[in-house]
């Protein structure tokens, strides 16, 4: 065998090994995901019924449904996004489009990144201290939404920043060269182009918000509250906390098991549905950007 061929066959072998290794690894990730999903689905499926989705919990949460927790989770998703999305997107626009490179910009970026690394229980404590006590909102949808909003703010800011950065500079130049102001350029060119990616940030945040337990623990979540909220100052039940409660400190943990898996399944389904909706939105805006 000629020297060259030997080297190249050696290279190909290495390639093949690396390639297959990567393939196996990525398959195992998918496999684990499928196992978790099927486990929850099989275990939880029996608990799901129309009544389960629309009734109040009963008998120390061993019977009845999880309706108030579903509604509570929806309120918290909506509330936190109402807070985090505009503030996050506007901050990112400021950081990326307006702030000059320098100390302030670096400082803000450092802070956002650090914010993202803080454990969620700390957000919970902070939210309790600021929103519940100091500002006097009490345990309420408002306090919980603000806490969850804070938690997800770094995600929104960072994904929005990435989305803005992905818009090629030449589009901005083209706009300025036509006498457009910075604000017009952002509004008419940059934002429409980055919207699909900004929506991805929204999806990620919603995923995170809907599953968090720690931040709502001391700020909004009710242990057992078989009625719907009437204002943003009311407490609510929420799916992740409900799941935690009936799996650890319910009146009869063994008897509540099916309900726990049912709750988990509903939680996953909600995240999935919200993701699909947001994906549709993303695709819709993606097409609009091209066509408009």
């Amino acid at each position, binding site marked *: 065998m000629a020297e060259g061929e030997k080297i190249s066959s050696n290279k190909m072998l290495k390639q093949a090994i690396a390639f297959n290794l990567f393939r196996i690894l990525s398959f195992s990730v998918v496999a684990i995901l499928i196992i978790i999903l099927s486990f929850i689905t099989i275990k939880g499926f029996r608990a799901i019924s129309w009544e389960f989705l629309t009734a109040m919990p009963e008998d120390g949460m061993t019977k009845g449904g999880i309706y108030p927790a579903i509604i509570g989770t929806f309120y918290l998703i909506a509330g936190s996004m109402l807070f985090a999305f505009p503030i996050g997107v506007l901050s990112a626009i400021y950081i990326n489009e307006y702030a000059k490179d320098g100390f302030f910009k670096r400082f803000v970026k450092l802070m956002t990144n650090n914010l993202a690394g803080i454990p969620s229980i700390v957000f919970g404590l902070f939210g309790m201290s600021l929103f519940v006590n100091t500002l006097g909102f009490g345990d309420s949808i408002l306090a919980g939404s603000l806490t969850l909003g804070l938690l997800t703010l770094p995600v929104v800011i960072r994904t929005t920043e990435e989305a803005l950065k992905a818009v090629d500079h030449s589009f901005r130049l083209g706009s300025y060269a036509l*006498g457009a102001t910075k604000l017009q350029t952002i509004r008419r060119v940059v934002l429409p182009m980055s919207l699909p990616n900004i929506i991805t940030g929204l999806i990620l945040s919603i995923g995170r918000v809907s599953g968090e337990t720690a931040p709502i623990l001391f700020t909004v979540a009710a242990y057992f509250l078989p009625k719907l909220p009437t204002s943003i100052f009311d407490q609510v039940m929420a799916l992740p906390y409900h799941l935690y409660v009936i799996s650890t400190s319910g009146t009869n943990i063994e008897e509540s098991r099916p309900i726990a898996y049912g709750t988990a399944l509903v939680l996953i389904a909600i995240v999935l549905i919200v993701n699909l909706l947001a994906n549709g939105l993303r695709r819709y805006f993606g097409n609009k950007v*091209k066509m408009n």
Partner: protein
Amino acid sequence: MKIRTHQVNLYYSDFHALKGITMEISANTVTALIGPSGCGKSTFLRVFNRMNDLIDGVKITGDIFIDGQEIYDRKTNIDDLRKNVGMVFQKPNPFPKSIFENVAYGLRVNGINDKKFIEERVERSLHQSALWDEVKDKMKKSAFELSGGQQQRLCIARALAIEPSIILMDEPASALDPISTAKIEELIYELKKNYTIIIVTHNMQQAGRVSDKTGFFYLGELIEYDDTKIIFTNPKNPRTQNYITGRFG
């Protein structure tokens, strides 16, 4: 004189990119800027619509007059200046919008909302840039569906729509095939009747074909500026001579 610059110096922070450029440009002429890469042609072009202002750390000294107005004066409104001084970039950069909206963009950001007026102006600009026949049936289609050459003519139409009197072109055909290039050159010849054009080009033949005057830049200096005919047949400076005959650059 349509444009007059006097002793223009430009610095990127500490880097002295333009050194004492003095130049006069008459209305309705095509001026070509030539010279090796990095000699400051694009930088000089961006002086006229103040696009250098967008770059951090840029300092400019000297005088630049357009129609007798000092454009770096406090009184100058930059957005108005850019309406008067259109620009076409090296790589076609249409917006991800429809063909129609691309041309209408400059009108809309300048506060024009009259639908009829916009439609007429869009059509006229597309006629001027010799694109109308190719796009008249697909105005609502995305500009990205056009070929590179068509996109560049769309960008020219986009610039024309707001009725500038000066058009800056930075190697407008360097990313295009020969046929599209020829179309752009024809277009420049047409546009000269109504506009003052400054074009940066790497292509000597192109400079020879389209321009009335040519300026040769080298390391931030304007080495020689004269009638294109003279620059290409009888340059006074040996460095110009060397560049033209391809001995460097």
